[in-house]
């Protein structure tokens, strides 16, 4: 019995359906890198088609590309793979434009891809540290909603951080 269950887990294919109807056929070991899918597989057991109404095909594809890379490299675990993964990750996030980064991060968060969220949030952090408040508002499309005088008060309190 144990041998048959091992075979099922390594070769089982899952069908993931994105919000725009695009489907992806992926090995269970790849898809379960995502906490949300892992939970669904554990709960629902036999269900092979998983619908993901909050992610579109483009970003789901990117998330799965990341999962595939990391699942493969986990199976033959030698030290060199760590370095390979790091370089791969670096390339992966290097040329992401802000819009893609945002949607990818939302997708990774929704799918509970913790490691991918870490990678992407670090990328966002590298883009915002040292920036001015106005630049942050522009990046995050935030409008100041302070009452008149409130912002000046906070700036005064933290004046040292505005050099």
């Amino acid at each position, binding site marked *: 019995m144990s041998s048959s269950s091992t075979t099922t887990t390594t070769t089982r294919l899952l069908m993931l359906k994105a919000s725009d109807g695009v489907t992806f056929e992926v090995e269970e070991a790849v898809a379960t890198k995502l906490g949300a899918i892992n939970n669904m597989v554990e709960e629902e057991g036999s269900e092979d088609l998983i619908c993901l109404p909050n992610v579109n095909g483009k970003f789901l594809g990117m998330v799965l590309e990341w999962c595939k890379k990391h699942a493969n490299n986990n199976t033959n675990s030698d030290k060199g793979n760590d370095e390979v993964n790091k370089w791969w990750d670096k390339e992966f996030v290097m040329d992401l434009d802000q819009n893609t980064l945002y949607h990818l991060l939302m997708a990774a968060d929704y799918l509970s891809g913790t490691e991918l969220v870490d990678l992407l949030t670090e990328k966002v*952090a*590298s883009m915002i540290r*040292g920036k001015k408040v106005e630049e942050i508002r522009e990046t995050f*499309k935030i409008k100041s909603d*302070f009452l008149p005088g409130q912002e000046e008060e906070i700036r005064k309190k*933290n004046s040292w951080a505005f*050099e």
Partner: protein
Amino acid sequence: MASLPDEVLEIIFLWVPAESLIRFECVSRSWYNLICALINDPAFVAKHLHNLNNNNNYYYYSSASLVFTRACHHVGFETKQHCNNARYSLLNSFTDDGVENGDRIGSVVEDLSLPLLHGGRYRWSDWFVSCHCDGIICLCSDHRRNIMLCNPVLREFKLLPESQNYDNWSCMGIGFGYDSRTDNYKFVRIFQEPRVKAEVYRLAVW
């Protein structure tokens, strides 16, 4: 990058140095509330510290703060009556070689001003740096009678309660550090005369 949920912003902020984080309080009301809550959350502070101490990730980032004293020749506006010889300054330097930014090293020097404790009884020149741990500096004055902990990056100061033993006992040493067993910072004062005795102050995480 519109409307990231708070739990995602929180993870981003773990990788943002304190100086930037404090500045970002001004972005909006919700950022202000989130950042104020986070810098008072021991779990966040511990993770943030861990990230800055273990920056072995690909976005190599480091920041260092140095507190030093320097001669002060001009009279400060609010501290007119005190400013006679020396004051503490904080030097922050940071490198940031995020992939798209290229190498960058910046620094900021800022005077630290002592809060007016006890109606301005204490002057900066009275205090000496005794020891430090995880960015918290332990200052002492009046032959180690008065102890103040200072988090220079957050500009926060805490005066420890005075020792009840001080008038009768002689103090031979003080120390400040992190106790991993109780996950807390401790300040210790050791007395020698008439017999050896130690006082331990436990602190909530800053």
